[in-house]
């Protein structure tokens, strides 16, 4: 127990330059001050002076979104376990505090020791989405770090981008020093060693040398060591290294044998409310379903399962370390684990009567069954059920290779209703390649059928369904990377038609909820997703004009982005449309061609052609390899069960 004299900033066991004493009086004037104080359960403050390599890890969105992020949590723990290496965390600062910090000259800080982010050697930023780019600029600027990588000195950290968006970091290549593709666990350790060695030698050759060493290691993409030439019509002519010994193509990292990486072992537990009030255990990484729109599924191949016993150990350790009451079994498609039934039953048996809830955040429609539903609710807690058919019509689902039939969906939803769920959520996308108005209207028809089936199966009217729909954004390293993105006008028109079809029908209006994201933010996401280096100036201008927190409706301004694009692209063949609604051809060099996700470009193209022809591709976990290229290129393999093991009951509880 701490006496009053020991708490507050004086709880840090050593003295260090901290911004806390300047920050504290400002916190009474801002909303949700708890998000800036740190000290979360399982957070770590390592001795600054004893560390040779210091990382700040940032999730470039608000604390409530960033804290639960598994990527940051894993790397924070992996790095802090290493002798001589420390990692602290930082999150985006809301405009109310940002304004006060600028007035009072307080830099972007870490939550752990409230130090300026500029004091660290490496500044890692995890981009789950491109909508974090403007927040990165805010953080750099608040931190007193030059926005342009070329202007940085030895006094500035090495800015590293990771996360899914780093598979095309070209739009932010002016602002970052390095992008790391793929799994971060081993990559950050290797980078730490390279930086440690360079520092021990007395930092020879300055910033350029350490970046070159990192680039030559093969696992770090350093944009400044690559030049891009363009054709007059705006297309890319070629991308080539401007230094010797740096690889022509930089490959992604893949961690094999997840059981060896049981992180986070000590999940962070915030005091503040966050978007996920539960503990997450990643049950497998990768996905081979082959949904053509899904960047995550493409870039995280191959499938690597955590074993049933590895999962059980992580759940037990995590529950003890956190006190959460709900465990999310996380992955891109959790019901696809080869032993998901045994896992659900084993965990439900083990925690019988302990008010621990289980949830599968991402469930495929066709893999769901009555047994799984019952196991998940046995302990009394019933979390929401979400399914993602993605496409409204059978034809649309063939185009995207999401092989779910309408009958599957209705059977699954009915099962849920019969087993006591009163509400299910269905995810769809609008603006998919080849989509027509009719395809989207099919969503209404199918959902009404599901409600009808639910009403007759339960013998009552107390069944509800919420449709959640957003605009499709074509992503790099997917078969749809060549596709024309649908314009916001067409997307918004279809979303409105669908809303009218649902809300105008009195028989269903109350039973079907309708949530949608309009098409405009998706157009900007499209620009940032498939943009090249020339988009960087647009990001900078939008940010200079006040753009922040692009993922938040109340802060996103489409007009500000359009104005920035018009200004920057004036007099060139480029435009917002050029990057978004323009279909690409096979011969065009794409901005990310020199970044290797392992996927064979020819295979992606043939799958794109297959999509247009309505052909389907199976899951290579259960059917023979269909040559996407990842395993041979990356020297990896599919790692799946079943192991045949079971989860033992716990004794002495």
């Amino acid at each position: 127990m701490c006496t009053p004299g020991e708490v507050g900033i004086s709880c840090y066991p050593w003295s260090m330059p901290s911004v806390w004493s300047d920050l504290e009086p400002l916190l009474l004037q801002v909303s949700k001050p708890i998000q800036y104080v740190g000290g979360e359960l399982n957070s770590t403050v390592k001795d600054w002076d004893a560390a040779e390599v210091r990382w700040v890890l940032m999730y470039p969105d608000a604390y409530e979104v960033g804290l639960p992020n598994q990527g940051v949590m894993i790397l924070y723990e992996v790095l802090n376990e290493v002798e001589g290496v420390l990692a602290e965390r930082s999150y985006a600062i809301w405009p109310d505090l940002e304004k006060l910090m600028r007035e009072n000259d307080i830099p972007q800080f870490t939550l752990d020791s409230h130090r300026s982010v500029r004091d660290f050697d490496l500044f890692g930023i995890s981009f789950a989405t491109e909508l974090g780019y403007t927040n990165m600029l805010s953080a750099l600027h608040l931190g007193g770090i030059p926005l342009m990588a070329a202007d940085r000195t030895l006094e500035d950290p090495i800015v590293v981008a990771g996360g899914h968006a780093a598979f095309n970091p070209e739009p932010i290549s002016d602002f970052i020093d390095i992008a790391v593709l793929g799994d971060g666990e081993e990559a950050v350790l290797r980078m730490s060693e390279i930086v440690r060695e360079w520092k021990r030698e007395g930092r020879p050759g300055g910033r350029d040398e350490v970046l070159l060493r990192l680039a030559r290691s093969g696992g770090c993409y350093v944009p400044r060591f690559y030049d891009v030439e363009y054709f007059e019509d705006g297309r890319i002519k070629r991308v080539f290294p401007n230094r010797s010994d740096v690889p022509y193509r930089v490959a992604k990292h893949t961690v094999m044998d997840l059981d060896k990486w049981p992180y986070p072992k000590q999940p962070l537990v915030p005091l503040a409310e966050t978007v996920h009030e539960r503990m997450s255990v990643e049950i497998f990484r990768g996905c081979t379903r082959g949904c053509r729109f899904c960047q995550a599924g493409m870039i995280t191949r191959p499938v690597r399962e955590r074993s049933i016993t590895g999962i059980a150990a992580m759940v037990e350790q995590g529950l003890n370390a956190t006190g959460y009451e709900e465990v999310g079994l996380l992955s891109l498609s959790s019901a696809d684990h080869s032993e998901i039934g045994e896992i659900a039953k084993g965990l439900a048996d083990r925690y019988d009567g302990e008010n621990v809830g289980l949830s599968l955040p991402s469930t495929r429609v066709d893999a769901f069954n009555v047994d799984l539903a019952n196991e998940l609710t046995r302990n009394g807690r019933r979390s929401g059920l979400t399914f993602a058919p993605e496409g409204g019509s059978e034809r649309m689902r063939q185009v995207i290779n999401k092989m779910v039939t309408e009958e599957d969906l209705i059977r699954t939803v009915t099962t849920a209703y019969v087993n006591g769920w009163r509400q299910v959520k269905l995810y769809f996308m609008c603006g998919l390649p080849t989509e027509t108005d009719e395809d989207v209207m099919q969503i209404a028809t199918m959902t009404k059928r599901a409600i009808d089936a639910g009403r007759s199966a339960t013998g009552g009217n107390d069944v509800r369904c919420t449709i959640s729909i957003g605009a499709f954004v074509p992503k790099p390293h997917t078969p749809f990377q060549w596709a024309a993105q649908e314009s916001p006008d067409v997307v918004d028109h279809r979303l409105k038609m669908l809303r009218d079809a649902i809300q105008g029908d009195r028989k269903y209006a109350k039973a079907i909820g309708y949530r949608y994201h309009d098409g405009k933010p998706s157009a900007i996401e499209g620009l940032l997703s498939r943009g090249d280096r020339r988009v960087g100036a647009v990001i900078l201008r939008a940010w200079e004009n006040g753009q922040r927190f692009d993922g938040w409706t109340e802060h996103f301004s489409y007009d500000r982005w359009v104005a920035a694009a018009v200004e920057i692209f004036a007099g060139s063949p480029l435009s917002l449309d050029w990057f978004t609604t323009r279909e690409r051809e096979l011969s065009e060099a794409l901005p990310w061609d020199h970044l290797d996700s392992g996927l064979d470009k020819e295979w992606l193209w043939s799958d794109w052609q297959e999509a247009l022809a309505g052909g389907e591709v199976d899951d290579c976990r259960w059917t023979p390899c269909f040559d996407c290229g990842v395993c041979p290129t990356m020297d990896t393999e599919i790692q799946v069960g079943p192991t045949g093991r079971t989860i033992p009951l716990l004794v002495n509880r």
Partner: protein
Amino acid sequence: MKAPHEQRPVVQRIRVKYAKRGRLRFTSHRDFSRALERAVRRSRIPIAYSSGFTPHPRISYAGASPTGVASEAEYLEMALQDRVDLGEVLSQLDEALPIGLDVIEIVEATTSDFAATLEASEWHFAISAPEELLQQIPGAIAAFLQAEEVMVERMSKNGLRRFDVRVAVLSLVESAPATLADGDSTPMGDRGRRSVILEAVIRHGSPSVRPDDLLAALRIEGLASRAIVTRLAQGPFDERAGAVTDPFGPDRK
């Protein structure tokens, strides 16, 4: 449809006194209750649950202090499914809570309606500010105490409210510094500014007067943002002694 889990009956109720210290004074009441529920689970205290499809732990909170205000005297009550050793629960729960949310004392509940016994609170204000601001304080206190009514306005969920602060303030004095242990966060102390300590006893009730309302009632520009406020005690108010007394008195027999 399956029936929800039957929950076991309550066999013991315990009352917990805890503190909210240092930077954890920025926890809101909702933040605290989430942290506590997790700590209860982690420390395997046999908490009772409500019945129903989403059972929740049976914990009731009394008179929680506002966000940003530290406290040495917060209270809550828990219902348990098994009898426990109070000393053990104290150390387990304190261990499971973050540093700064600290358990001070636990008693078994032998009386009912605990919340109603919390009649008043003793507040401590540590104010670090430029000299010209601090010089206004003695006069402001005198003027406040002489007035019969001091109205302030506060934005609430139901819009702007206007209410009298004076009637709820039982005492207000400027005291010598260092009532709290030294080293507690004194944000501006290192800049050569003097600190002033105020102590006040405020009666609970309607309209509820918060410590920042009292600072507003002193009518000194910039005062509220320079004060670190701590609740030192809450409990029954002894009119004769003019002091807040221990609310656990009756439970200790």
